[in-house]
């Protein structure tokens, strides 16, 4: 039951990765139950605040999946995501949050197996890292208002 608490908030883009996750389902590939999906139109919509809020609300990891570079439905959204996530990971490190708790990867609409693989790997990483320790620095900020 320990796994259940180590939630991984997972952002999937509407076009490739969300369908990739569906393909994993079609193929009945086992995926961890703590990977919980939020759909966005493009991985470029994922604001760094979303990641920080996820940690603040109790998530132990955040997974962001988009179309492969060059395949973005919106041409270049995923390139913006790369930049933001790289910068965010550096910032998180400053707050003592392990960089491995955030993972950005690419899953196409046909890659059910890759989705299952990435989801399981992420769950394993988070299992190793354990729950995120209490971080006062993230207290008292209302992200919906920010």
């Amino acid at each position, binding site marked *: 039951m320990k796994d259940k608490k180590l939630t991984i908030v997972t952002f999937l883009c509407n076009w490739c990765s969300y*369908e990739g*996750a569906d393909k994993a389902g079609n193929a009945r590939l086992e995926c961890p139950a703590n990977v919980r999906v939020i759909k966005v139109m493009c991985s470029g919509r994922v604001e760094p605040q979303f990641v920080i809020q996820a940690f603040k609300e109790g998530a132990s990891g955040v997974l962001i999946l988009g179309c492969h570079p060059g395949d973005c439905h919106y041409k270049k959204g995923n390139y913006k995501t790369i930049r933001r996530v790289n910068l965010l990971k550096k910032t998180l490190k400053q707050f003592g949050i392990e960089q491995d708790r955030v993972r950005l990867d690419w899953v196409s609409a046909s890659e059910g197996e890759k989705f299952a693989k990435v989801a399981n790997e992420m769950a394993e990483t988070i299992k190793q890292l354990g729950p995120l320790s209490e971080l006062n620095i993230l207290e008292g900020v209302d992200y919906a208002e920010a």
Partner: protein
Amino acid sequence: MQERIGVFVCRCGPNIGDKIYVDSIVNDLKNIESVVTAKSHNLPCSKEGLEFIKDEIKKGELTRIVVAGCTPKMYEQKFMDTCEEAGINPFLFQMTNIREQVAWVTPDKALATEKARKLCLAAIKRVSLQEPIERKEIEVKPDVLVVGGGVAGLEATLTLTSKGRKIILVEEDESGETKPRESAQFRKVYLVEKSPCIAGVCGKVEEVYQTMECAPCMLAPELQEVLQKENVETLTFSEVEEIVGSFGNFTVKIRRKARYVSEEACIGCSACFEPCPVEIPNQLNGGLSDRKAIYIPYPGALPNVPVIDRLNCLHLNGKECNACEQACAFGAINFEDKDEVIERSVGAIVLAIGSKLVNPAQYPQFGFGKYDNVLSAIQLERLNASNGPTSGKVLLKNGQEPESIAFIYCVGRKEIGYCSGICCMYMSAMAHHVKEKLPNVKIYSFYSDLCLPKKEDQKVFEKVLDKGVEFIRSDGTEYVDHDGKKLIVKYKTESSLKSKAVDMVVLAPPIEPSNDIDKLAKLLDIPLDEHGFFEEEHILMKPFGAPLEGIFIAGTCQGPKDIGDSVSQGSAAAGKILSRLMLGEKLELEPIVAEINEDICCGCNTCIGLCPFYAIHRDAEKNISIIDDTLCRGCGTCVAACPTGAAKAWNFTMEQISAEIREVAK
């Protein structure tokens, strides 16, 4: 108003029903504030299921709906339509995926139930923050600007104007009675062509592969139709100067260059050419013949109205000459003619400006421009053409027939970095034609690779082999020398350096972007690819759309291609326009877009450079960014980057996604 939410959890037969404790979830959801109805159903997507949801909406006076079931990629639209039919805005609906992403991937039933419960809670929290979105429609102009009168532009023009729309006009007759009368409404196309005539490169070629038919004959019906159509305004000798606006409503300024010959008065008798004392090389014939200062590009060019070359005309340069004016029996010459800038309103634009051949002088090893009788492919085309400088005779500069010709393929291909894909075939077609005219001529074709991609190409190639054309495979390092009498082609095969003496050398240079492409790309703010051609929205799925909505690209301005592919692209671009800009109808806009709150925007312009669809511009007066919702596709990249929170992604707002995070993170 207190929201009244209805949640429907699908069992999907055993698919969800056996994998998740559906009743336990439904019981939990009933206790949530603002959830009025929480029910499970065996198959909500069925006809009966949809009716069930509709009934529940009425019974419970529900205002927002959540369905937990399969992936929204399957039936989300069906459920949204059902909401709409029951009087709920379809954007007050949320679907959560507990089949593909929970039931089918989670063997442990307790864990699956826990995950599905969280996803349902997230969907309920999200739906209560969703806002109704009204489908927006805007008035649009059905008319289209087509830039470029080559085969792609002509095909686009004809497809766009082929059919009108029946309308019923109600008019009062003399007695004051109203009577319905059937009439038709037509789309107008403004066909803008830079040169004095339409037909593009194809009009200058004698015989085209794969059919080996006469190009002017093949084109004649299309050209005549375009010129005679009432709803096509053909603007030759004209250039686009300014384009403002966006999809559905562009305003275009077109410069009609002074022709000095009235298109209305001229009957095309050619009496004005002979008396003109000026003679200059005719570039349209590859400089192989001279033309007068008043001229048409080639015999048979349409429209058959000459133009006066203002740089070389004596009269227009202050000298005393009015020979053409005197020769014209119809008063068509007008030395007072001035450039005129006209304005037209259109809903979409097709760019079909073509391309050009690289000048082979760039590759000095071939002796082009240095030795006589070293020709570029287009020059041989003109010699070959019955409307060309020698009336179709293939002659050397000294007027004699060549006894031997070397065709060199792939000139500059390595340097330019791509295969033009048509040279092997047009060189073969020309070799075939020359052999028919001069059966005894020896033709050597030097190639390193052959590109014969289409189903008829191999047959054409074999025909050329049958004619006795000798194909010599070299390593692509040919160069051309001269021994005082003959041209010497030096080439390397696998074994050794060899040479061949010939009378004429014909070079096949690659296709490169036209000179005007930069100007148009700048006018429209659309990108060029690494080779300088227009960049398409998607090279496989949308090869004829520019990344900017409402702008389409057709023919070789997108990249090298043959006549058939250019025509297909012209037609495809037109088809896309016909399906979006319908006569008499408004344009429905993408409902999920981003919007900027004027009061919050600080004018930092961060968003502008991020938008892949050029949908954001700066309002200098207000010092803010503005999103054009005809161009926005709703990716939300600008929203994620906005430092002030002024940008909002409809249906994916900060509040909605935050609410989901709060539920699923726990």
